[in-house]
């Protein structure tokens, strides 16, 4: 397993995802992808679903990928990689691999729309069939590539273009779908939620994921400067607010049951601070909708209690 000493070395240790791409300045997608790829020295076979990452990194005649990469459609990055993994197995059985002593890792990336919504069936199928692959969701809680429509990951009270806040609406009405729990329920050997600001935690989880046999799901919080509406230089600061307010708790679930919380903030900050840092929640700070901020806090507290109980009870 690749040893990583410090952030400086980590950030320059491999260049299989080039800095040259069309993602917005400050986009967390690029930070996460780099962290995932830099966590390993293994050969990689990658796929991406349609979304910001895909449209910004493989614009002919250029590519930002120095590892084999494929994109088919919005929903099927998971199955593209599963097909490649099946071919790897077949050629291994038949003795036709070009580099038989090298064992590549298979990774698919998708946005939350590609993952929580349209691609859900494909991912579920891949996990049920037990392909040896990692699926990384770049969870920016919105369809960013098409201009900010709601997804089933968009949190309640967020203003998205298809669930806009207005005089008679506070924006998104539904709670964010718990994709991590759903993927763990597939009995996957390893499922984790990560955030790019906690890079050591992230590397440890990615390495654990690569070491696991079978399908691995990583839900990566991906702060989106454009749709969350914060300054590009604040990506990591906003990410810190997310993990320290426990809006995005960091934990892992091993074999579908064993839950471990991997980050406990020394000072838990109020959810209000996280919401207040982003334009998408601006309307919540008006008299009409302010009650939602308290509801938010109650929900985040309850989830934290639940996670701790599950950790303790080992269920």
């Amino acid at each position, binding site marked *: 397993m690749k040893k990583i000493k410090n952030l400086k070395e980590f950030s320059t240790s491999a260049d299989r995802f080039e800095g040259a791409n069309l993602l917005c300045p400050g986009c967390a997608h690029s930070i996460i992808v780099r962290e995932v790829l830099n966590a390993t020295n293994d050969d990689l076979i990658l796929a991406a679903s349609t979304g910001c990452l895909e449209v910004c990194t493989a614009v002919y005649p250029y590519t930002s990928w120095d590892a084999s990469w494929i994109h088919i459609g919005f929903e099927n990055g998971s199955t593209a990689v599963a097909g490649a993994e099946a071919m790897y197995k077949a050629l291994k*059985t038949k003795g036709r691999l070009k580099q038989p002593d090298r064992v590549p890792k298979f990774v698919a990336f998708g946005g939350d729309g590609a993952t929580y919504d349209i691609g859900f069936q494909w991912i579920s199928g891949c996990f049920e069939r037990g392909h040896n692959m990692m699926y990384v969701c770049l969870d920016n809680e919105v369809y960013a590539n098409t201009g900010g429509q709601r997804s089933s990951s968009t949190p309640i009270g967020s203003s998205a273009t298809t669930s806009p806040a207005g005089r008679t609406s506070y924006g998104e009405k539904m709670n964010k779908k718990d994709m991590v729990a759903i993927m763990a329920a597939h009995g996957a050997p390893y499922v984790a939620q990560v955030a790019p600001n906690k890079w050591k935690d992230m590397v440890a989880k990615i390495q654990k994921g690569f070491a696991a046999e079978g399908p691995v799901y990583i839900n990566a919080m991906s702060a989106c400067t454009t749709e969350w509406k914060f300054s590009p230089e604040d990506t990591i600061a906003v990410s810190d607010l997310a993990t320290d307010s426990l809006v995005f708790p960091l934990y892992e679930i091993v074999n579908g049951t064993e839950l471990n919380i991997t980050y406990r903030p020394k000072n838990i900050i109020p959810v209000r601070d996280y919401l207040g840092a982003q334009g998408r929640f601006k309307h919540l700070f008006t008299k009409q909708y302010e009650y939602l901020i308290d509801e938010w806090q109650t929900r985040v507290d309850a989830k934290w209690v639940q996670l701790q109980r599950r950790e303790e009870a080992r269920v």
Partner: protein
Amino acid sequence: MAESMELRDIEVWDGNFAAAQALRQAQVDVVAAYPITPSTAIVEGYANFKANGYVDGEFVMVESEHAAMSGCIGAAAAGGRVATATSSQGYALMVETLYSASGMRLPIVLNVVNRALGAPLNVNCDHSDMYLGRDSGWIQLNAYNPQHAYDLNFIAFKVSEDHDVRLPAMVHQDGFLSSHTAQGVHTLSDEVAYNFVGEYQPMNDMLDLDHPVTHGVQTEEDWHYEHKARQHHALMSKVLPKIQEAFDAFETLSGRRYNIVETHQMDDADIAVVCMGTSVETAMEVVNELRATGIKAGVVGIRVIRPWPLEQIADALKNVKAIGALDRSSPNGAMGMLYNEVAGTLFNAGVQTILTDYVYGLGGRDLTKAHLVQIFNDLKANMDAGKPTTPLQQFIGLRGPKLSFF
């Protein structure tokens, strides 16, 4: 190593099993599949071969047809021989990915057992599914019976995987009429069949770890046009000669002759029908009977649907005075696809003739010899009058009041 299977020279197989045997003998590396009537037995057959050690590729039973083709695309991009099968609604669910496979120039063989599209739901044969994907950039071959379904799979692999071509290929056969009808099928031995198809030669394969490749890029207005034009160019200029080569090589191997356009009694035909699938052989029988009464009738069977063999079709029909194009798909607001394509082909070749469109056999309705006799009678009346005397478009074998249009 997969075990070899001893076959008799002639086996009694239906079209589905014949196709499954061809996938086994081609020793496909990955089959990703989802069942749908009437093509299910192809992948069941393959799964059985795998369960009994006759194939050592991977069989991935995915959760939908869209995933089946997605998996096939990933597998083909990884670098190996790939195949699957589908019909109807499953084909419709695949359509998005069919364009991806051809756009990425990936060799994949898809057996399409033709079936109607709902609603109303119907499991029987017509060519609605085939028509739905006709612009998807795949090579499309048409089998009229189980023997063809077997043989054309080998041709499909050979042409599709050719490095000058690199385009996916479909083998169509008629649901139930071919897929579930057992006939004597002349076989090839495992060794002869595999050698004909040849060992898979990877190209731009993702599993060549020293040479990473990017598949499925974005192009927009600055390159998309060029890519699509080149794809079309490959289809139009490279595929037919390769198919011809493969047909010739296959004849040397097996003694069985296939042609890009199949003709029956066309040398001196005055009237003719153009059709696909099982109706070609029915039409041939009717033509033989008409010939005995002195009527100079003929049949043109489309063997290669895509790329459309313009020249060969024009050549076969150039002296015919009245033609019926037989469309086995609801035209839904237009003339049938076969009518339109034949009309365009003849117009372009400067052939002045009388062309009518016969819609038939939707949802499994039989096309009987009596129907064909009626069609030829129409054509003869048109020829004798030297002008159309019958409606431009008719529905054949329809209950209730006669429907005709235009």
